[in-house]
C-alpha cells in the first residue's frame, strides 16, 4: 500500500501527498455538486413553498405534505406504486430464480442464450413500452389475436386504462420483462459459486431435486435473492417510462414518479414535487431495508 507514496517521494513530498487528491477531485466534485447538493436541496426545499411562476420562496412548514395528502391523484399513485412494487419484486425474483436454475447447467450455445436473455435489460424502457403497448392494442394487438385464436377470449378486449389493477399488472409485466435478466444474472452468479459436492452429497442421501433445491440451494443463494429483490424494488418504486408511455397522464395507473413529474413540471409546484420526492426516497430506503431483513435474516427453513 505504501509503495506508491515511497517511490513517489523522489519528487517533493507535497506533490506525493497531493496526487491522490488531484486524482479524486473530479469525481468528488461531480458527486458533491450533482448528487449530494441536490439531495440536500430536495430535503430542505420540501418544507418551502417553491413556485417559479410565483416567487418568492418562503417557509411552508408541513404545508406541501398536507397538500399532497389531500390530493387524491397522489394518494391513488401511492397505492398504485405499491402494486407496481409488489408485482415487480415477486415476479422478477421468481423469474430470476427460475431462469438461473434453467441456465445454470452448461449446454451447447449457452453463451448465445445468455446474451439473448439479457437483451431486454439492455434496451430503453421507453422503446419496450411502445412495443408492448402495440402488443396490448385493443384493435390489432397480438395479445388479443393469440388469446382469441386459442379461444380464451370471445372478442378483442381493451387491456389498458379501464381496470386499475389490470392496468398496473400489465404495465408492470413490461418492467419485469426488463428487470428479470438482472435478477437472473445475480442469482446465476450465486448458483455457480455453489460447489457441486453439496449436490452430490444430497443426491447420495436420496434427496429429490426439489428437496435438494430447498435444503441446499435456497439457503446459499438467499443473499443473492435479497440483492435481486432490492434491485427490483428500487426500480419498480421508480417506475416512470412504462407508465408515461402506456398510461399517460391518467390517474388510473399513475405512479409516484409520474405524479412527481406532473406536479413539478406541469403544475410548476416545485415545493410539492420536492415534498413528494422526499417521502418516496425515504419510503424506498425503508422498504429496501425491510426486504433485506425479510429475505436475508430469516432463519433457514427446511
Amino acid at each position, binding site marked *: *500500500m*505504501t*509503495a506508491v*507514496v515511497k*517511490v*513517489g517521494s523522489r519528487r517533493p513530498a507535497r506533490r506525493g*501527498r497531493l496526487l*491522490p487528491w488531484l*486524482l*479524486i477531485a473530479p469525481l*468528488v466534485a*461531480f*458527486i458533491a455538486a*450533482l*448528487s449530494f*447538493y*441536490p439531495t440536500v436541496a430536495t430535503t430542505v426545499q420540501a418544507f418551502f413553498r417553491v413556485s417559479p411562476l410565483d416567487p418568492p420562496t418562503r417557509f411552508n412548514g408541513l404545508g406541501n405534505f398536507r397538500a399532497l395528502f389531500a390530493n387524491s391523484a397522489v394518494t391513488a399513485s401511492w397505492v398504485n406504486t405499491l402494486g407496481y412494487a409488489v408485482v415487480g419484486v415477486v415476479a422478477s425474483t421468481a423469474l430470476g430464480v*427460475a431462469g438461473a436454475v*434453467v441456465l445454470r*447447467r*452448461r*449446454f*451447447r450455445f*449457452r*453463451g448465445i*442464450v445468455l*446474451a*439473448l436473455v*439479457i*437483451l431486454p435489460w*439492455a*434496451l*430503453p424502457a421507453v*422503446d*419496450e413500452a*411502445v412495443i408492448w403497448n*402495440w402488443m396490448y*392494442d385493443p384493435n*390489432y394487438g397480438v395479445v388479443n*389475436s393469440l388469446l*382469441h385464436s386459442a379461444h380464451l377470449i370471445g372478442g378483442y378486449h381493451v387491456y389498458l386504462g379501464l381496470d386499475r389493477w389490470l392496468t398496473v399488472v400489465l404495465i408492470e409485466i413490461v418492467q419485469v*420483462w426488463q428487470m428479470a435478466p438482472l435478477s437472473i*444474472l445475480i442469482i*446465476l*452468479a450465486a448458483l455457480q459459486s455453489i460447489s457441486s459436492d453439496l449436490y452430490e452429497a444430497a*443426491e447420495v442421501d*436420496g434427496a429429490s431435486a426439489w428437496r435438494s433445491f430447498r435444503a441446499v440451494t435456497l439457503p446459499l443463494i438467499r443473499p443473492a435473492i435479497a*440483492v*435481486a429483490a432490492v*434491485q427490483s424494488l*428500487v426500480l419498480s418504486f*421508480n417506475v*416512470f*417510462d412504462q407508465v*408515461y408511455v402506456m398510461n399517460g397522464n391518467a390517474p388510473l395507473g399513475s405512479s*409516484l414518479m409520474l405524479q*412527481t*413529474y406532473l406536479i413539478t413540471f406541469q403544475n410548476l409546484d416545485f415545493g410539492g414535487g420536492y415534498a413528494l420526492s422526499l417521502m*418516496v*426516497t425515504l419510503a424506498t430506503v425503508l422498504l429496501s431495508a425491510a426486504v433485506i431483513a425479510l429475505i436475508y435474516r430469516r432463519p433457514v427453513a427446511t
Partner: protein
Amino acid sequence: MTVSVTSQPSSALAGRRPDLPRGRLSRTGRRGVRVFGRTISLVVILVWSLFPLYWALNTSLTTLSSAESRPAHLVPSPVNIANYQQLFGVSGSQSGFANQFGRSLLNAVIESGGAMVLTIVIAVLGAYAFARMQFLFKRTIFISVLATLMLPAYATLIPLYRIMSSLGLVNTYLAVILVYTSGFLPLATWLLYNYFSSIPRSLEEAAFVDGASWLRTLTSIVIPVALPGIAAAAIITFLLGWAQFLFPLVLTSDLSSQPVTVIVAALNGQRIVPFTLLMACGVVTAAVPGIVAIALNRFIISGVTSGAVK
C-alpha cells in the same frame, strides 16, 4: 463472482453426474424426461425474452393493412421495407420525419457517448487512487461516493433541473452529459475499483523502480491490463445513457438536444404515426444497444454481476 459463458460442444453430457437408479422410470427414461423438461424451459425463456422484439420487427417489416389484420400475421406478409426507407429518408414522402428521427439518434449518440467518455476518464483516475493510494478520509469518501448508487432519481431530479436552468444549460448536450455522468460515476468507479484491486501490484512496483511517473505507469501498465474491466464499465455506461428518458425529458425541449427515447415517446403519444413506422423507430432505437449487448455480452455479464454481488 463471474458467470461463465463458455459453451463447449457436448458439455451437456460432461456436466452430468451419474444417475442413481430409483423410482419407476428407467435411467434412460428419466434422462429423457429431464432433457425434455430442460429444453422446454429454455424455449419458454427464449420466447419470453425475444417475442416482443420479434413482434416489433414483424410489424415494422410489413404494410399497415397487413399489420392491422385479424388474426395477426405471425410473419410479415407481404414483406415491405418502406417503413425503413421512410425512416432513413430514402423515400421522400416524409423527409421531415426522417430528419427528426435521424437528428434524435445523433443526439442520443453524442449524449450517451459523451457521458461514457467523461465517466470513464474520471472514474479511472478516481478508482486508481482509491485502489492504490493512501490518503486521509479515503474510506469515508469512497463509501460516500458509492452510497449515491442508492439514491433514487427522485432525490436529485428537480434540483438538477434547477441547477442546469440557472446555468443556462437547459436544452444543451452539456446539461445532459453532466447529469448522466454524475449518475453513472458511482457504478463505474465501483466496477473499476474492483478491477484495479484484482491486478497484482508487482507490475506497477517494477515500473516505479524503473523511474516511471504515476501517469506513465497508469497509461502504459495499469490501463492496458485493466482493459476488460474498463470495457465493461464503458459498455454498461453507454447502455445506461442510451436508455435514459426521464432526465432528458426534463432537461431538453427541442430537437437540438432531445435524444431518440424522448422522440419515440412523443411519436407514440401523438397517435398519428402508423404502428408500422413506430415499430421501425423502435427497432432502430433498440438495434444500437441490442447489437452492443449481444456482441459484448461477456463484458456486460461480468460487469453487472461484479457490481451487484460483491
